């Protein structure tokens, strides 16, 4: 009796989205063991580097998790990475702002962009897809406009067209470094902080519960006194804020602000959220799942990379594995 109860619980756990996402990750890890590229997969640096590479996408996925649970979608996150990377580089390198002021300005700009998308959705009842598509195009244009279409780096063009060279601000190197005896990239720590903040919001704040409620059934939530518009505004605002954080990390890792940075990052970030098991229909999911999704995609890319798989094969394999993982997730039960 006791034993069958345990088995029952085990069966239920296996069907949960978390277990499914974990199994997908384990499957990918097994692939890594099989195709270990002469032992490269067993090196600690491989895992460390994988985690660094996935950090920017993971930060975006954190914000997207909130928006998707709220029943929306945000396509503008990739463009906001480019915009904020450029803005941050302009302010610190060209305008000579102190790092703290530049960071604050970028976070503000990102949040403002997110709130604008949210406003289009909440106030004008635009479909999230359309509203954020518009923001995606607009933000990319703004990034190109303020940078003049050029990468913003420590090579500063003078009025006569010649270039002078300035020191790269310390904040770039600080964000690009590794800490804890060289074991974790700073951007990965930023990612973990974003994860923790999102987890706290979703699990511990009243507003987090409202996010689930409007995603689950907007009308029922509204009639239960949930401030639907304010909740949407905050969700998109948070997503914009995290996009700005990702933009700073991107700039730091490239040591420059590239107006083309982050192109199509939104797709990878959405794939991470969905592979984790957060439903695109809204109302269900969580940021723990997003971490598993990020690790799965990160390891997949890493394994393809260390084995030097050709680009065409990579695209086909990635597409196939995303589909398989999502089908696997679809069988999951709450």
């Amino acid at each position, binding site marked *: 009796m006791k034993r069958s109860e345990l088995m*029952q619980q085990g*069966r*239920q756990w296996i069907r949960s989205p978390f277990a499914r996402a974990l199994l997908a990750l384990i499957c990918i890890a097994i692939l890594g063991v099989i195709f270990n590229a002469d032992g490269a997969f067993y090196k600690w640096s491989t895992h460390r580097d994988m985690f660094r590479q996935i950090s920017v996408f993971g930060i975006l996925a954190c914000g997207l998790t909130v928006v998707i649970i709220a029943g929306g979608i945000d396509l503008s996150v990739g463009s906001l990475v480019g915009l904020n990377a450029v803005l941050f580089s302009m302010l610190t390198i060209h305008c000579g702002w102190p790092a703290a002021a530049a960071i604050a300005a970028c976070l503000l700009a990102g949040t403002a962009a997110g709130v604008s998308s949210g406003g289009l959705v909440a106030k004008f009842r635009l479909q999230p897809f359309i509203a954020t598509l518009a923001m995606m195009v607009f933000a990319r244009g703004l990034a190109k406009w303020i940078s003049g279409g050029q990468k913003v780096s420590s090579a500063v063009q003078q009025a006569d067209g010649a270039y002078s060279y300035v020191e790269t601000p310390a904040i770039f190197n600080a964000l690009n470094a590794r800490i804890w005896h060289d074991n974790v990239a700073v951007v990965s720590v930023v990612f973990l902080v974003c994860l923790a903040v999102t987890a706290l919001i979703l*699990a*511990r*704040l*009243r*507003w*987090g*519960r*409202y996010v*689930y*409620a409007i995603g*689950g*059934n907007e*009308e*029922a*939530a*509204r*009639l*239960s*006194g*949930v*401030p639907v518009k304010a909740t949407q505004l905050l969700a998109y605002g948070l997503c914009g804020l995290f996009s700005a954080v990702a933009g700073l990390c991107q700039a730091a890792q490239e040591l420059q602000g590239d107006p083309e940075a982050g192109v199509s990052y939104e797709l990878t970030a959405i794939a991470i959220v969905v592979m984790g098991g957060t439903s695109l229909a809204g*109302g*269900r999911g969580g940021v723990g799942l997003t971490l598993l999704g990020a690790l799965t995609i990160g390891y997949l890319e890493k394994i393809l990379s260390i084995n030097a798989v050709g680009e065409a094969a990579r695209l086909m394999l990635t597409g196939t594995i995303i589909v398989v993982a999502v089908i696997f997730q679809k069988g999951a039960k*709450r």
Partner: protein
Amino acid sequence: MRGIGKSFAGVRVLDDVQLTLYAGETHILAGENGAGKSTLIKILAGIYTEFTGEISFNGRPVRFKNPQAASALGIRVIHQELSLVREMSVLDNLFLGRELCRYSMLRRKTQREQAAALLQRLGLDLDLQRTAGSYPLGLQQMIEIAKALLGDAVVLILDEPTSALTGIEAEKLFAFMAALKERGCALIYISHKMEEIYRLADRITVLRDGRWIGSERADALPRAEMIRWMVGRELTGHFPARPALVPGAPALLRVTGFSVADPAGKRDFAVRDLSLEVRRGEIVGLAGLQGAGNSELLLGLFGAYPGGVRGLMEVEGKRLTPGSPAMAIAAGLALVTNDRKQTGLIADHSIRWNLTLAALRRLSPAGWLRPRRERACAADYLERLAIRAASSDQPVATLSGGNQQKVVLSKWLATQPRVLLLDEPTRGVDIGAKHEIYELMNQWTAQGLGILLITSEMPELLALSDRILVMHGGRVTAELSRRTATPEGIMRAAMGEEAAA
């Protein structure tokens, strides 16, 4: 069907159930919600394909691989939930999934002719090109029925078809069912309405807790006996007695000159210049046929149409402008809507999350959730309203209709309201749970709450209301006291006859 069994996730929901159906009979399938009626018909209709036991059809054993296979043999189901595509035309809905084609081109003309003939037989006057969603719920239900009758139905299964129909629409349906019977069609009918059951039944099969209790000819099974089969105990009277009203009780809710713009935009007003009062401890019944505006009145009072309402409104003597549901909740109002699935519950979420949603401001001071408080609150209401659930973490969708409704009621009680606005609180709820809800309403009024109640079931309205307001076309056409109200008087006023109060 013999020895039918079915399990979900290890839980046995049907166990050794049998059902024999003869041509030309109306067979009532009765039982409380959760008794296994829906599961049984889903097996018969080929929706659930994994089960134990056997089905034979015209003496031959059959096993359906999918709903299409059952439909091909003439077994058709009208489910409780509407399955129309609201954005598609009536015509396209009727033929959805079995379009008439020649060389994969739609034969629209043939379809139109067949559909027109069918609607005429049913006595329905509908525009085939209009979208299904633009018709009121009652007519949508009729479209659903028409869809099942398209082609030749041999066995027609109706799962609570009248829950969204007006009296006149239901009469039309019954007449049509009689005609089908004449032609030798077998009908399985699921209903919770006692009057309907005894009016229609040739034979009755009762299920309880997934088991077959018995099958009997209707004239050999008295009502009291059937109810005992269903609930396993004898109910003392159908409705609990209402205690007498305290004279001179103060008004909790006072509304003067209240108008609500028609949310569908078809007419100018859904509610026009209406005044009413709900006193402490009083149940005021709101009667009216479809389109009378009573649901819109409740939604308007609750702030669901900000900017769409006019008039004065006072809760416990304090002015309230209906700006948002949140404001209404803060003022002490609570609204149980008439559609639990669409507007009452978040089906994916747990009982606890649903139960605490409206009261979350109180339960999470300074914006921080307090899981322990939430758990305590949920446990408290699970016990007080006798909600049958394994734990408050269970998804609310897994509960039976009656228990779901009790979760909705708990959600609103948790906001500590002064006035309850109840729109069809017993819709889709089995008899046992209905009874419990009636008693709860008595308890609440005894505690000093006021209730404004909409119900389309006449006995319920007459038995529960201290006062009845009858609405027609957005106005009150009659106000009747408990003693002066008669079904005929209410129906007259509901159909637009101004009655002397």
